[in-house]
């Protein structure tokens, strides 16, 4: 039996709607489930106390600080190298051997499981460079892990800037650097920031790579040389060793809220900046 165009239209519409609804439903179920279980645990004490008796009681203040420090360090390291490489690839070369090597390496790095980065960081930073389990080791390892993503998303954002903007800028007597810094970079900023937000999310949520490099210490970190236990790792240990499901959910809920907040704040900032030009 042949379908009429109207019938196939109807079927396609139903299937597509069903797929979308299923995905949205599942996602919101997971988020709502964790928030419902976790939010009641979160209170001032949970946010300001350090964990006590291995996390069974007390809060997660040291983990919040540790997560923050590791992530900020990783992002601070990756921004100049990642964005610099992206500009080199997009603006300064025209597909030579070096470009292909960089692209191929970045793509290969993006496909490596994070535990491998963890192992690399453990052997190289923790043991060989004698940095020990520390925020520094963790931040460096995460920086390596997110570098391919930052390069890739930044390069795409730069290439998406219309060619005519560059021509206009050159025709107005701008040099290459003036064109990049005054026209291309502001136009690509939204895409670049989106890539960085994505990377922040991955840093905050990472377990394997940081557990092997930043350690499991529960104390409040005092410098980037202190070991720490990030929230995701803390959550993993609490749940895995059956220490406290309640506190695990509390940590998870806080993680979700944090990532949502980062997204909202970053998007608002960038939109405000971009609005000037649109």
């Amino acid at each position: 039996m042949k379908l009429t165009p109207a019938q196939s239209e109807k079927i396609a519409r139903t299937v597509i709607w069903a797929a979308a609804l299923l995905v949205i439903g599942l996602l919101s179920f997971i988020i709502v489930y964790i928030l419902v279980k976790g939010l009641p645990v979160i209170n001032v004490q949970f946010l300001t106390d350090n964990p006590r008796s291995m996390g069974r009681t007390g809060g997660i203040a040291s983990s919040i600080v540790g997560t923050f420090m590791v992530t900020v360090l990783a992002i601070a390291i990756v921004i100049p190298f990642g964005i610099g490489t992206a500009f080199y690839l997009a603006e300064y070369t025209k597909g030579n051997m070096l470009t292909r090597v960089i692209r191929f390496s970045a793509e290969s790095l993006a496909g490596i499981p994070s535990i491998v980065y963890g192992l690399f960081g453990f052997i190289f930073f923790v043991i060989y460079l004698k940095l020990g389990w520390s925020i520094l080791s963790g931040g460096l390892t995460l920086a390596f892990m997110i570098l391919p993503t930052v390069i890739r998303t930044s390069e795409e954002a730069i290439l998406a800037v219309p060619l005519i903007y560059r021509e206009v800028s050159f025709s107005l007597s701008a040099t290459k650097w003036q064109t990049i810094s005054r026209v291309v970079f502001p136009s690509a900023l939204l895409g670049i920031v989106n890539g960085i937000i994505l990377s922040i999310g991955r840093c905050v949520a990472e377990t394997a790579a940081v557990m092997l490099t930043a350690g499991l210490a529960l104390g409040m970190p005092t410098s980037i040389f202190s070991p720490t236990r990030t929230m995701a790792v803390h959550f993993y240990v609490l749940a895995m060793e059956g220490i406290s499901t309640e506190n695990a959910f509390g940590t998870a809920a806080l993680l979700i809220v944090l990532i949502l907040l980062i997204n909202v704040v970053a998007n608002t900032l960038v939109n405000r900046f971009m609005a000037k030009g649109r």
Partner: protein
Amino acid sequence: MVKQSKIVINNMNYYYRKKQVIFDLSLEIPRNEIMAVFGPANSGVTTFLRSLNRLCDLTPEGHMDGEILLDGESIYGHASNVTELRRRVGMVFEVPTPLPMSIFDNIAFGPRLNGKKSMKEITETVERALRQAALWDEVKDRLSISGMSLSGGQQQRLCIARVLALEPEVILLDRACSGLDPISTAKIEESLIQLKEQFTIVIAPHNIQQAVRICDRAVFMLMGHLIEEGTNVEVFSNPKDQRTSDYITGRFG
């Protein structure tokens, strides 16, 4: 006394990879006149204009030989400075292209590049450029809104103002009115006729009528060859070459 030509082109050839797109072109462009360079698509008109401010340098496959002199000095020579050349020879593109920034910043873009000017100077430059481009009265109260929110005709006048703010000597317009309505086109043509008092203008008109209306001299190009060059009356009323006559009477093209 004969005025020295603003731009002199001697035996220019242009190639994209192996394909030649301009053949042995020699031409003198007099100062303070509007010269129209016209021809059907693929005649080399755009390439010709882009070689006058070395914007074709951005096309890595392109290659030029021959000589182009601006005020008697080679623009492709070792002594020439590309950014200074592009300041002196400004360009308005076919599509209106405000940069994604405010009207003010669009026009201040060029003057700010050398970083020497004070805010007061820049403000004065912006106002003068907008007045010259006949856009000031329409936008003076909203200089901080985005250049992209203007209408097409206003955007193109913004682009002209942006070039004028560079205090150039030559203005190149590459089919700069092709997307515009007749009223906007008329406004721009009016400005151009006033501007030629101070500038040398080379325009690729978007149709024959526009060339007839505004140019002092005209050049007809076909498939990369210069077919005919002369005054407005010579070329449009009394063309010497059959191909020119066929093209302007609409027999082909």
